[in-house]
């Protein structure tokens, strides 16, 4: 077992453990922090899977953006209610049942197939460049739409929250 493999398994376990932590945690804030851990480990796994650009995006956008927004939301709601953000659980049986069932099913499929990864050296140097080219050529339309979507989401989110404020006033 080399170092790389160790790191790989380490991050896998971290991701799995933090995900489990989210499931078990009753505190929203802790859960958000564990999600952060989970996202970072996944970013590390991306790096190990030769997807550096995705990993960076993951860290920047998710860890830096989304999660901050979420934590901000958590703070806001707990401030509004003034109660500690303890969360109850429902549907435990149904959730465990469907989770285990789905996992068993997926694991079954995964085990059945053999995914032969090509053994020749993976070209990683051109990846970033290729992605950039792809955005501008083959994926230009989705890229533009994604941009519009982002804009729309931003305006929408701002609008929804501003209604709240205007109503509150």
């Amino acid at each position: 077992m080399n170092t790389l493999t160790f790191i790989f398994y380490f991050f896998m376990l971290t991701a799995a453990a933090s995900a489990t932590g989210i499931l078990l945690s009753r505190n929203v804030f802790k859960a958000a922090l564990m999600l952060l851990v989970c996202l970072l480990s996944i970013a590390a796994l991306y790096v190990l899977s030769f997807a550096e650009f995705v990993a960076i995006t993951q860290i920047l956008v998710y860890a830096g953006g989304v999660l901050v927004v979420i934590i901000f939301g958590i703070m806001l709601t707990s401030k509004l209610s003034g109660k500690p953000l303890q969360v109850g659980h429902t549907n435990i049986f149904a959730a465990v049942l469907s989770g285990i069932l789905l996992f068993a099913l997926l694991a079954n499929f995964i085990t059945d197939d053999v995914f032969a990864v090509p053994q020749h050296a993976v070209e990683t140097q051109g990846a970033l460049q290729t992605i950039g080219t792809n955005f501008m050529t083959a994926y230009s339309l989705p890229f533009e739409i994604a941009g519009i979507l982002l804009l729309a989401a931003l305006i929408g989110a701002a609008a929804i929250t501003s209604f709240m404020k205007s109503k509150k006033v």
Partner: protein
Amino acid sequence: MTALSFHTDPTLLLCIFAALLLPLLSFGASVLTPRQYSWLVSFNAPLLLLVSAICAAVALTSRWNDDPALFQITWFTVGDQPLSANILLTNTSLLMLVVVSVISFLVHLYSTGYMAGDNDLKKYFAMLGFFTFSMQGIVLADNLLILFVFWELVGFSSYMLIGHWTEKLAAGQASKKAFILNRIGDAGFLVGLMIVWANTGTLGITELLSSGSTYQWQTAASLCIFCGVIGKSAQFPLFSWLPDAMEGPTPVSALIHAATMVAAGVYLLVRIHPLFTPMALTVVAVTGMATAIIGSLAALFQYDIKRILAYSTMSQLGLMVMAIGIGIVNAALLHLFTHAFFKACLFLSAGSVIHALHRAQLRAHHHFDVQDIRNLGGLRQNLPVTFLTFLLGGASLAGIPFFSGFLSKEAILAAVWSTDSSVLSWSLLVAMVSVSFITVLYTFRMIWYIFMGEARKPLPVAPVEPPVIMRMPVVLLALCSLWLVVSWNPFDFIGWLLPEAYYTHVAWVTAFSVVWIAAALGVSYFVFRTARFDSNAILENAFYVDAAGSKVLGKIVQISATTASHIDRKWIDGLIHGSAYAHITIAHITGWVDRTLVDGFVNGVAYLSKGIGAFTRSFQAGKIQVYIFWAILAIIIFLIWTLK
């Protein structure tokens, strides 16, 4: 009703139909009379009945001793088999028609006095008319189905009349009992009809009896039809309605006992007795014998005037049925006729007693049960006419020479005597002799207690005779209890009413009867005189042996009578009650089964579907997470289903 074919002249037909339908007209007129004019019916109904009786009499005189005639009427046709409503005219049916209409007329007449002031006169006279109509239908019918129709209608009329006083709960119970016991017999009758129909394809009596030969099925058929007779004529197992039916107005009892209801059974037996096989006849004879004995013994220990008379009717009917059982139809018929008159006389006289005492009580404001002979006594001074008529009727019932009852009983006795000697005929003879003995006893006791001695519960106001309109019919009937009704010779029953019999009148049997009746009279005089009044004195004085004998005899008679009464009241009534309870129990059980098992199953299905509904409804609970669960589950199932 189509296809009338006239066998005789239209005048006769008119008379017959008038005699049959005028009582029905009386019924209709009474029903349609407005309530505020209900007094009209008490004029109108006897008048119609009088016309009916006259018509019947005209028909009788014009057809007396002619050949039997048949009016053919088709009621309806099933497939190609017509059900006829033929009318048969013979000496018997015409005579019966006259008897029914005359007695009914007299009862109507009597009722106008007896029921005066009743607040439901309309219903009363309507049903009297209907009762008469039904009975006349039975008399004339030549088809078992038509006969059954009128047979049931008689039951219905008796239900209405016995239950005339609806506010009396006992009247309701008695009428119900009468109808149901009759219905039980009628069910048997109906089975008999089915057997006859299935085997011959006809229900016409003349047609049925003309074949001559005897078949296997006849035993079953005749016994089933006899079931109907048992119900209607109050024979052995089904008689208990008869004494209970005394809850009805007294004239109704007279009608039931004399001419209309109980006579119907005997008349039916007379009509169809050729259908009976020897085996069936034996059953008939034994039933009649049992009824006669039970009835007479029970009569001996009753205290209610009307119940005594009811039991006596029962025993006399038993004698008639017994006579038919040994094949002596004419004798039975003769007794039926004489009985009709003297029993009507007795009932109406009893009614007069009750009526007179009631009126006296009303004026004196002093109340006791006027029908209980223990409360009566010494009425001969106050009610001389009634005493006389009661005496005449009673004498005829007891079979005292010079009265019609003597002759008709004599006819039966001679008939029994002339049959082949066998265990059955001997036992019948013994039964006959003892029943006639007991008849004397209870008749004597009844008359003695009512009219002789002193008033046991004296009223401050002396009872007076009922009005003429009530006395007249009674007197007429009392005169009809004399021997002249039967024949000129007071000791020979073969006379104008019974012109010929295939057994002869035996002189020494007559002599024996005279002696026997005399002995019975003597015994009863001693029994009841000693038992009731200063018994010790007479016992101690002369007749130690006699007195002991009479005491033992009295005791035996008393015990057997109470036993009979007990059987009647406890066992047979108890059986009926028990079966009624059993019915109710079974009914409750079936009701329970119905509610619990059958309904339960249905409700179970409903609950099941409701549960499924609630279960599937829970999918739509408006909870996102549950929706997600079901969506995921569906996807999983879909995956398993498609990919496996």
